[in-house]
C-alpha cells in the first residue's frame, strides 16, 4: 500500500540550492587567468553531484555557482568538476 518508490528524488529547485551554471571554455580560461590559478586549486564538486546532473558536466569543467549571501548579496563562486 505504501507508495514508496525506491528511485532517488531529482531535485530541480530548492531554497538551499543555489543556481549552478557550466562555464564555457573561454570563460573558464579567463577565470583561471584572472586569479592565476590552475584547475586543481579550485574547490571541487563531484561529477555525481545532484545539482549538476542536468548540466552534463564532466571532469575538467568549471561550474559557476550564484550564491545568495546574507553579507554580500549575490556572489559568484566557482568549483571544478572532479571524479571522486
Amino acid at each position, binding site marked *: 500500500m505504501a507508495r514508496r518508490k525506491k528511485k532517488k528524488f531529482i531535485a530541480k529547485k530548492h531554497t*538551499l540550492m543555489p543556481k549552478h551554471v557550466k562555464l564555457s571554455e573561454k570563460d573558464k580560461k579567463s577565470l583561471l587567468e584572472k586569479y592565476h590559478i590552475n584547475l586543481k586549486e579550485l574547490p571541487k564538486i563531484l561529477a555525481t553531484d545532484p545539482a549538476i546532473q542536468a548540466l552534463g558536466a564532466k571532469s575538467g569543467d568549471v561550474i559557476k555557482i550564484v550564491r545568495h549571501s546574507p553579507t554580500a548579496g549575490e556572489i559568484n563562486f566557482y568549483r571544478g568538476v572532479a571524479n571522486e
Partner: protein
Amino acid sequence: MATLKEYQDKLPPKLFEELKDETKGMADSKAKKVAEAVYEEFRMSRVEPGESVGLVGAESIGEPGTQMTLNTFHFAGVAEMNVTMGLPRIIEILDGRAKIKTPMMEIFLKNPYNKGKDIKKIALSVRETVFRDIATEFLINLADSTIEAKMSKKKMDDLSVTDNMVLKAITGTVKGITARIKENVLIVKTKGKEESLNEIYRLKEKLKDIFIKGVKGIKQVLPVKREDEFIIITAGTNLNEVLQLEFVDEERTITNDIFEIADILGIEAARQAIINEVYKVIESQGLNVDIRHIMLVADTICSAGRIKGITRYGVVSEKSSVLARASFETPIRHIINASLVGEVDELTSVVENVMLNQPIPVGTGLPGLVTKSTKVDK
C-alpha cells in the same frame, strides 16, 4: 542614477542596492560624496591581505563555545520534542558525523494543505507505521505452531490501516507463510513442516517490525502552525522519500541531516545547511558570532566536493605536513606511517614551524615574491 554607476563594480551588490535606496532624491554631487564615503568605509573594513582568517575564525567560534558548554544542560530539549542543541550539536556538525543524534525534518506543505486541510491525516500518513503500532497482544499457539496477534481496531482506524493492508504487508515481506485475519486477530502459519519453537519465536519478533505504511525513518510527527501556515515537524528523517510525496512543498522542505542534503540536493546546498544549522544553535544560545566565520568553516568542510569534518579523518588528514597531522590527534601513528613510506615535510605551514621554533608562514592571500637576483658590477 548615473553618478553611482562607477561604484557598481567596486561595491558588493547588497551594499550597492542600499546605497541606491539611501541616495534617492539627492543632488548628484551630494550623492557622489556619500558614495565616496561608503566606498572608503567598505575598503577599510575589508579583510586585509595576509590576515589569518582561519585563526580569527577559530577564536571567534571557540570563545562563545566555552559559554555554550555551560548553557547546554539548561536548555537541552525543546518543549515538545527532544533536540540536540548547544555544543554537542555544533560538534556533531563540524565533525561531519554521518549519524546524528536527533534527526529532524521540517515538512512544508503545498496549498491548500498548508492552510490546515486534513493536516492531522497527512501528518499521520507520513509517519512510519509498523505492525507493533497496531498490535496489542502476541500469542504463540504451540499446538498448531501458529502465531496469533490481536490487533486494536481503534488504533487501526486512527492510523487508517485496513486488514488488507496488513495482510499484504506481511505476506509481501516474509516468505513462506500464510496469514489470515479473523475477528481482529491475525493468524500466521508457516507453510513448511513443523517448525521449532525457536524459529516461531523469531518469526514473531520479525512480525513486530514489519513496515505497513508511511515513510520509513519518520518516527514521530507533529503538525504545528508557524506564522500563518501549517508545517509538519518530524523526528527521524528521510528527505528522499518525503520529497516525492505529492502534498509536500519540495522547494522548502528541509532536514537537519547534512549528509542527506548533500546526497539529494548537492554539496552547495549542504554548505548552506551547515551555515544555517550552526548559526541557529549559536543564535538560540543568545550568542553573537559573525556569520562570515561560519561561512569559512562551511567552505572548508565542503571544499573537497563532499563533506569532510574537522577531524583526523576529514580535513586534517589532507594536510601535507606530517608534523601538522601528528600535532592534531594520534601523533605516534602518523609519525610511524610517515616514516614507513619516507615522507618529506616541506615545513610550509604553521604548526610544524611552531614546533621547530621558526617564523611561521601565515596569512591568506599573500603572494610569494620571487625575484631574479642580478650581479652588480663594482
